[in-house]
């Protein structure tokens, strides 16, 4: 394994310098150092990688490796490729030591449970993971940047060393060359909702009927926004603007050719290291105020809101149940229940659920037992998913799936793919939703979706409008 210290470099700039390589991925802890606060642990690391040695794609429930169909089930093929690598024991203290980076779409959930097909199926692959042997690791806490080259997929000593050396040099050449042409101004994306306010509110009312009928306790309903993509639209530049406007610990940019993703998710779905698992479900949102006093009041109101706490606790119970399927008895704990986390423009109610994986259970087992995350389905999970499909009428694609990495050392860190824009086939789409309970008010739920959409829409307004911004919310401080 080759490890080289790099001159301090911004992750977005490193991504831009590698952007001519296929399969560019940028897992971007875009929290600024001065605003890290309680996000310091979540936002410590960023990773930039490109040119994977192989790519696993799942379409219609079938796994393909570099376009060739595979015989095994998707998760078995993922497990086989992630494998286990003795060489990672000499890794230089970075949480990601090489392995899979990509996404699992929400609709992959249909491969894990018997669920109805939506009327309109999303055409994006259900899963894409590139396997990366060379990557840049950025430690925001220590202000260090390192290039790591593992020599994968070679296994023999010399061959592996030679590959690691050659790949490191090729990446260094790109990373150390003078900055190329700066990205032009981010062009405007004319996002429009695909449904009217009345439709979303009627769906919320229908969901409440399901709750009152005893069908479910809670369901997450979303609405979608779509914009035509201008010719030559620079999605990476858009991500740069989004991360500046809406810094989040689980931001990401993924370019898998047919689908590009720019995300600014605040929510960790699952992290696993040495058998310890952590989930951080978010349920409960309040808009931030400009005035510090009012802002603190908004946070306090959220922390004591009966409706939001009920939403959050239901999902904590669901996550505890999901994790209990793969964790040792009595290892499930809730160290944080309904804590407040503050992001640009929004306060969230966040809980932390932890557990220890049972003997013989790996990251893929944990993923299979818990996917999709309960915070974006509802409870009970399967019935809630059926109702989502019936009410929303279309697949969700990447939205509400998971983005992140699974390392060759068995560690994993995946987020919930919310606040996520997908660029595909001449269109940009994103969705925003909220949890519906018996106490929900349709009009307030609609407003909540717009509040969540605000930062993405601001980024989409393009840089011409940036000169005349609306009053900006304070950056994350908590």
């Amino acid at each position, binding site marked *: 394994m080759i490890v080289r210290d790099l001159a301090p470099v911004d992750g977005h700039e490193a991504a831009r310098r590698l952007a001519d390589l296929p399969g560019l991925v940028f897992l971007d802890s875009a929290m600024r150092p001065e605003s890290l606060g309680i996000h310091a642990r979540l936002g410590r690391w960023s990773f930039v990688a490109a040119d994977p040695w192989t790519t696993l794609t799942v379409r219609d429930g079938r796994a393909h490796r570099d376009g060739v169909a595979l015989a095994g089930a998707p998760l078995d093929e993922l497990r086989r490729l992630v494998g286990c690598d003795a060489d990672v024991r000499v890794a230089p203290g970075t949480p990601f030591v090489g392995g899979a980076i990509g996404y699992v779409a929400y609709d992959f959930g249909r491969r894990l449970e018997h669920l109805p097909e939506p009327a309109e199926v999303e055409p994006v692959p259900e899963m894409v993971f590139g396997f990366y042997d060379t990557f840049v690791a950025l430690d925001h806490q220590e202000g260090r940047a390192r290039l790591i080259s593992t020599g994968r997929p070679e296994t023999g000593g010399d061959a592996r060393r030679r590959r690691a050396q050659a790949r490191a040099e090729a990446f260094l050449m790109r990373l150390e060359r003078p900055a190329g042409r700066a990205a032009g101004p981010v062009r405007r994306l*004319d*996002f*429009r*909702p*695909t*449904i*009217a*306010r*009345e*439709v979303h509110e*009627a*769906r919320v*009312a*229908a969901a409440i*009927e*399901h709750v009152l*009928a*005893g*069908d479910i306790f809670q369901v997450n309903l979303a609405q979608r926004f*779509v914009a035509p993509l201008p010719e030559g639209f620079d999605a990476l530049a858009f991500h740069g603007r989004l991360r500046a406007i809406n810094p989040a610990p689980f931001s990401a940019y993924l370019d898998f050719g047919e689908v590009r993703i720019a995300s600014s998710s605040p929510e960790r779905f699952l992290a696993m290291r040495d058998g310890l698992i952590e989930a951080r479900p978010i349920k409960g949102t309040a*808009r931030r105020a400009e005035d510090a006093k009012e802002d603190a009041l908004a946070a306090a109101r959220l922390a004591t809101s009966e409706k939001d706490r009920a939403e959050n606790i239901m999902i904590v119970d669901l996550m505890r149940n999901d994790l209990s399927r793969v964790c040792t008895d009595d290892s499930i704990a809730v160290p944080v229940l309904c804590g407040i986390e503050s992001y640009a*423009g929004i306060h969230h109610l966040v809980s932390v659920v932890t557990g220890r994986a049972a003997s013989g259970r790996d990251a893929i087992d944990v993923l299979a037992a818990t996917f999709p995350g309960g915070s974006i389905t509802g409870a009970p999970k399967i019935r809630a998913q059926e109702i989502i499909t019936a*009410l929303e*009428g279309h697949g969700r694609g990447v939205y509400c799936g998971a983005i992140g990495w699974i390392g060759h050392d068995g560690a994993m860190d995946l987020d919930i793919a919310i606040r996520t824009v997908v660029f595909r086939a001449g269109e940009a789409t994103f969705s925003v939703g909220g949890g519906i309970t018996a106490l929900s008010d349709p009009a307030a739920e609609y*407003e909540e979706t*717009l*509040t969540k*959409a*605000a930062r993405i*829409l*601001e980024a989409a*307004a393009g840089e011409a409008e940036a000169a005349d911004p*609306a*009053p*900006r*919310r304070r950056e994350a401080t908590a």
Partner: protein
Amino acid sequence: MPQFLLVAAAGAAAYTAYRVFRREIARVAGHLAEVRVPSGAETPTRLVRGSDGVFRPEP
């Protein structure tokens, strides 16, 4: 004989409860089916940024 009557009464009660349960399921299912959810086929609306920074559909 008393035992027979007891079993018969318990059976009748169970059957009646089952019928009530089935009727309730059908009633709830019927009610949920009647909940009208409009389709999303309306013309998309332009979004306008409000003074609070939130974008809302143009009135």
